[in-house]
């Protein structure tokens, strides 16, 4: 069994002191240990952004792709080798701006991938521009007079988009966050865990204190029914998504299990062999 230490690297982190991303990293590492993951069979696909550097700090097979394309890459990894535990990780810009199309399609495709979005409502690495989750009125370098767009509501979109697992965590609430990641990984199919991960440098509005005051923990609400899409949507709308916990889950068959005739063993180790009869049968159409 791998320990926490096994998932760490020598690399010292490049995040600003106090950045919420430290908490996401810690919770993810804890969750990996908890589910019994091994570094060699864990694949992490990270996006571009402060958040995307997370792969540098976890000992596993990591690929750090182009901005916004974590999910297609993760799909490729999963299909290449179904025995791997596949996680995609990136920022709110990576996920919901440039990556929006892939996000929506990954939900409905439902491959067994755990997607962790490190949501700080701002573009960190490019030094403080508006992000899709920035609130209307938020002042940034590209919205000096305040953002004039309505923010994206990732949780509602996920539920409406056909997600089979939707959760939200907060980087300061470690036990819950680690637990949500564990549940996401254990879910058969695509799981979205949107994580509130404050940017202490470029977002002074949505701060730790602000979240601690406003976030409501749905996991503590025994009346909440996480199996109804319509009810999840209603609750998310009412609360403006200022909730944590598991929001929606439904039993599902992952994409890779539905592909006709698809190999269960890793394509990665396939020798390419085709039985002669199969080959001949195939050529018949060209006769």
């Amino acid at each position, binding site marked *: 069994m791998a320990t926490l230490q096994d998932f760490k690297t020598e690399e010292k982190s490049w995040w600003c002191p106090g950045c919420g991303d430290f908490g996401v990293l810690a919770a993810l590492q804890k969750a990996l240990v908890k589910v019994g993951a091994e570094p060699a069979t864990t*694949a992490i696909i990270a996006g571009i952004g402060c958040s995307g550097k997370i792969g540098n700090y976890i000992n596993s097979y*990591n690929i750090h792709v182009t901005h916004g394309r974590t999910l297609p890459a993760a799909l490729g990894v999963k299909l290449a080798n179904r025995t791997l535990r596949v996680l995609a990780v990136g920022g709110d810009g990576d996920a919901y701006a440039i990556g929006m199309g892939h996000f929506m399609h990954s939900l409905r495709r439902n491959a067994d991938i755990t997607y962790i979005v490190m949501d700080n409502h701002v573009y960190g690495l490019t030094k403080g521009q508006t992000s899709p989750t920035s609130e209307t009125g938020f002042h940034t370098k590209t919205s000096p007079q305040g953002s004039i767009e309505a923010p994206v509501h990732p949780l509602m979109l996920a539920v409406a988009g056909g997600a089979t697992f939707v959760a939200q965590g907060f980087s300061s609430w470690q036990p819950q966050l680690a637990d949500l990641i564990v549940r996401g990984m254990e879910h058969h199919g695509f799981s979205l865990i949107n994580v509130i991960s404050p940017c202490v440098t470029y977002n002074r509005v949505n701060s730790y204190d602000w979240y601690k005051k406003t976030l409501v923990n749905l996991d503590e609400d025994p009346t909440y029914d996480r199996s109804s899409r319509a009810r999840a949507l209603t609750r998310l709308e009412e609360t403006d998504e200022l909730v944590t916990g598991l929001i929606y889950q439904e039993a599902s068959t992952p994409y890779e299990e539905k592909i006709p005739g698809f190999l269960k063993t890793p394509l990665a180790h396939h020798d390419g062999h085709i039985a002669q009869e199969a080959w001949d049968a195939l050529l018949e159409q060209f006769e």
Partner: protein
Amino acid sequence: MIAWKIGGDQGEGIDSTGDIVIHVANRLGYYVYGYKSFSSRIKGGHTHYKVRLGTHPIQAATRHTDILVALNQETIELEGSELQGGVILADSAFSPVLPPGLDAQLLALPMTQMAKELGSGLMRNMIAAGASAALMGLGIQPFYDYVAKRFGTKGAEVVKANQMALQRGYQALSESAHTLKTTWTLTPPIPADRLVMTGNDAVALGALAGGCRLMCGYPITPATDIMESLVKWFPSVGGAVVQMEDELGSITAAIGAGFAGARAMTATSGPGLSLMQEAIGLAAMTETPVVIVDTQRGGPSTGMPTKQEQSDLLAMIYGGHGEAPRIVITPSSLEESFEDGYEAFNLAEIYQTPVFIATDLSLALWQQSIERSYVQNPVPIERGKIVKTFGSNTSEPFQRYAFTADNISPRTLPGTPGGQYLATGVEHAPSGKVSEAPENRARMMDKRLHKIQSIHSRRQGFLVQGPANADLMLIGIGSTAAVNREAAQLLQQSGIAAAVGWFRTIAPFPHELFASATQGSLHILVVEQNATGQIAQLIQMQGLYDQRFATLLKYDGVPFLPEDVAQYAQQLIASSMEVTH
């Protein structure tokens, strides 16, 4: 050799009629080549399908038509001029008229009426096929056999109905045979075991044989067939086709799979290529194998989606920002398409980098004969430097991007204990960790850019057929190479010692080989289906484009014809003789 053509409105079954003729002729042992003209619409609009059949290999279209099956008057107007003394087989339903001055015999058959008598207007094309069989002297039985095979799964009744229609057409023509001014008798073919397929088929089969088990794509003409074939074939061998949301997703999923050790591909055409440029740089930077088929079509932008062009070469080589190794291989025949279909994966894994298979619409879509023996299975599979296990003392982190003598570093596939690493599109140290150190940067750039150079010792990047000291060498790529081969034959027939040269690898450019192979030729004509002479520009970049070179360009969407290339070449030689003597 006979050139048979059928023309009518799109959506009227022109395709399937041509398909039947081409398959039957091939089964009889003739070499066949089929050329279609179609538009970017589903129904309506003029379309035609031309089949050449003969006893020698045919790899290109030609202007001349012997037999024209016309399903409407428009076909006669538009295609009639191709006939010089041939026959037009027309449906009398539209009261066909032979325009004045047309040197052809018009034979009207009541195809629509006969079809109605058989109970289905849809049978008209079968009647046309039966009549064609008689006209070409191919016999009707092979047609019966073929429809039995083709429609077998649809039940005996369907087969029967089609056979009856064939028979009616055959008989009707036979009855009018005495009125014909021209008849055709082909040399009997030497029996052979050949298949009929397109370049797309050959590439897809090659990929399949080469161990590709994942195809992530997005539909686009003329590449879609590759995805559509693989999605039919994969279930029997355990592979998967994913129709992605766009080309950005397609290529990135394929790269993810390559990172994780699968042989994965995508196939697209111009617009998709442009969208993939960023991700291709990622594959190059992370040294991840991936195969991209670009079936070129008329550009730029949406351009001419159903028309022939070879105008993406520079974009494949130079299209991404920054400088990254890109291998571009260029099949020019079905055989080479099959070979490159699997070899691309070997190259991608050996060199750990993106590999393009650059084809073009003509090569990708038009059917030809190919010896069955060429489409062999198994094919050589080489996976390059993969480390499968580590000793027990694997405390050292794996150096994924270690500097080595051949600039290729051993890689691990996810799942291998001790082989974990970070693959990143950011510049990195041998360990994979991000590094901005200037010295490391320069070495990494050199490593990536140099590693692919040794490809030239693995495969011949430029091939030549014909005399070493040619009067003229015709240089081409993809389907124009095939056109050139026939053009060279025509030139040889008029006493010119013509050779053909074609690229098998256009990037990295086979500098030495190209220089030596072209050395002995007096004149060199680069034949390209584009407006800016992209191959010529690449030769220029190598400093090899000297005064012996000339360029023949065509960018109107219509493929070159061998006779036109030959004629141009002859003029070129003639005019240069005027100048020099």
